[in-house]
């Protein structure tokens, strides 16, 4: 029995354990760490939505904050002008994110590689500019303050407000992550990986690659907007900073550090970046440098992301013992070449 199947065997137990830990967290953690944990959950969703593009479909987007900000402003504007209840507002935020992706998709998907990166970045900056200059509606650089924090009615009075919003975030993010897991493991998700590896090949096989990328772009936009809407509720505020490309860059770093194209990688990257930001900045001013050093070390030592750390340690130990490399699982026979391509990817990573 090899290492991979052992980890596969324990996966349900690990996820269950994680869920229990997340559920009891409010009873163990004080208020401040709990709010950091809430933020980690929200940004995990953001990073995972970006990972659909960056990791699975191989589309290097540097404009994902546009969707995050769209979700945030949808929630903020609805709260300010209409007083819409949170579930409906979040739903509209998702629709707004998907709509933005559907509108911009036909343009950005004409470009490739570096041009894709710059076009997504440019469009995000243009959106930033519109929000910044349209002061009458968006509040300009002052943003929209005073968004009321929604609360779960059945927990009212039983737990603190922080814990209440934490549970709300946990439920929304949990459902979203479960659906992302379903999407990336579906034939659609596998086809995306195939597009990343060799788009023309998939096209030759008759896959509608453009449509698949378009759908992936829209999905990523919807999930990104959901994260942005939650964040606006979390902060009680939405401003141009939530559209800024710096946020898109941070999301990109979270995905790459954790492991692009792996399911749990973005979550690990998010935890690392946010903990570095909040914990390291508390005891040294040089945290920017530390973040830079972490980037470089990760790229040099763990090029496939921190999520591969256990495998990497095993590899290094095997090398040290001068043993033969670990036996690789033999690829089972597959029916379609696309699945074989995916298998190759998995094997390589």
């Amino acid at each position: 029995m090899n290492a991979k199947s052992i980890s596969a065997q324990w996966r349900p137990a690990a996820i269950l354990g994680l869920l229990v830990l997340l559920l009891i967290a409010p009873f163990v953690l004080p208020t401040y760490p709990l709010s950091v944990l809430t933020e980690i959950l929200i940004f995990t969703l953001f990073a995972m939505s970006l990972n659909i593009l960056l990791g699975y479909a191989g589309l290097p987007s540097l404009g994902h904050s546009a969707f995050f900000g769209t979700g945030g402003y949808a929630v903020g504007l609805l709260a300010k002008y209409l007083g819409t209840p949170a579930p409906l507002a979040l739903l509209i935020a998702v629709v707004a994110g998907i709509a933005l992706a559907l509108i911009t998709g036909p343009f950005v998907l004409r470009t490739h590689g570096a041009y894709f990166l710059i076009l997504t970045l440019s469009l995000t900056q243009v959106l930033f500019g519109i929000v910044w200059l349209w002061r009458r509606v968006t509040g300009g650089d002052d943003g929209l303050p005073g968004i009321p924090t929604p609360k779960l009615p059945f927990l009212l009075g039983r737990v603190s407000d922080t814990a209440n919003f934490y549970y709300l975030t946990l439920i929304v993010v949990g459902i979203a992550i479960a659906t992302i897991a379903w999407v990336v493991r579906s034939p659609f998700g596998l086809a995306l990986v195939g597009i990343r590896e060799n788009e023309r090949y998939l096209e030759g096989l008759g896959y509608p690659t453009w449509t698949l990328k378009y759908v992936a772009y829209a999905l990523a936009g919807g999930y990104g907007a959901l994260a942005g809407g939650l964040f606006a509720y979390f902060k009680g505020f939405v401003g141009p900073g939530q559209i800024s490309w710096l946020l898109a860059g941070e999301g990109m770093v979270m995905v790459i550090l954790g492991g692009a194209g792996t399911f749990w990688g973005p979550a690990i990257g998010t935890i690392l970046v946010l903990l570095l930001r909040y914990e390291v900045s508390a005891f040294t001013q040089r945290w920017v440098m530390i973040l830079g050093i972490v980037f470089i070390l990760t790229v040099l030592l763990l090029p496939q992301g921190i999520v591969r750390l256990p495998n990497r340690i095993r590899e290094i130990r095997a090398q040290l013992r001068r043993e033969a490399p670990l036996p690789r699982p033999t690829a089972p026979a597959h029916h379609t070449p696309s699945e074989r391509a995916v298998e190759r990817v998995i094997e390589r990573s």
Partner: protein
Amino acid sequence: MPVNTASLVIGLSYASLLFLVSVGLSVVFGLMRFVNLATGSLYLIGGYIGWSVARSTGNFFLALIAGALAALVVGVLIERGFLQRLHRKELLQVCLTLGVAYIVQDVTRWIWGGDPLRLRPPELLRGSMELFGSVVPIYRVALIGIGAVLAVLVWYLLERTKWGAYVRAGVDDLEMVQCLGINARRVFAIVFSLGALLCGLGGALGTPVTGVAPGTDIQLQLMALIVVVLGGLGSVTGAIVASIVVALVDTIVRTFWPEASFFAVWALAALVLIVRPQGLLGRAA
């Protein structure tokens, strides 16, 4: 009339700086598909070192040389130390060079502080002169001259020499160039170092105009990315044309509608890429 000689001079002198920062990025990008997000940091290093040398020696030309050499050293370190092993891994390149950019920004903030630093132009180029009926700073005019000379030099090097032909061939088909027995890795290293040198020179030259502060690196990095992509990857002519277009648009919008100046350039970039997904002068990929 808002578009007068003065704003033209300001725009074109800014274009000179943009060209110096972006030409190396463009060729490296085109040649090895290498995304260097530490380009702005090289400009920053050139600016700070230039400022310090000018302060201590009082010699502006020594400052230019020192700034360019400092950026060259850091560029060679980046290339030798990291880049060689990240061929064709764009995401990792982004992450690594971003890490370098973070470190450079933090170290320079540590040494030179967070306030913007400005350098006075050399004695010879101080003050202003009259050009076509408007008063313009002499240093800006000199910058345009230096930029033009360097642009011609770089253009000649890449478009008219044998060595330049290797580089251009590498942009088009790297594997084939290697098959012909040309040491593409060395060509790449030289291009990267020259690019870093020009970046540092741009930083030192730009200190009297743009000043240098934490954040200058990000601003120049973003502008350089726009220039490179608008001009088309690996195209020197494209980099020249795009530098001028971007700088002029930036300057003109700044006079008309100051709050929107930063976004106008991005709107331009978005528009060009929507109409021509391969950039202004780029070859279809």
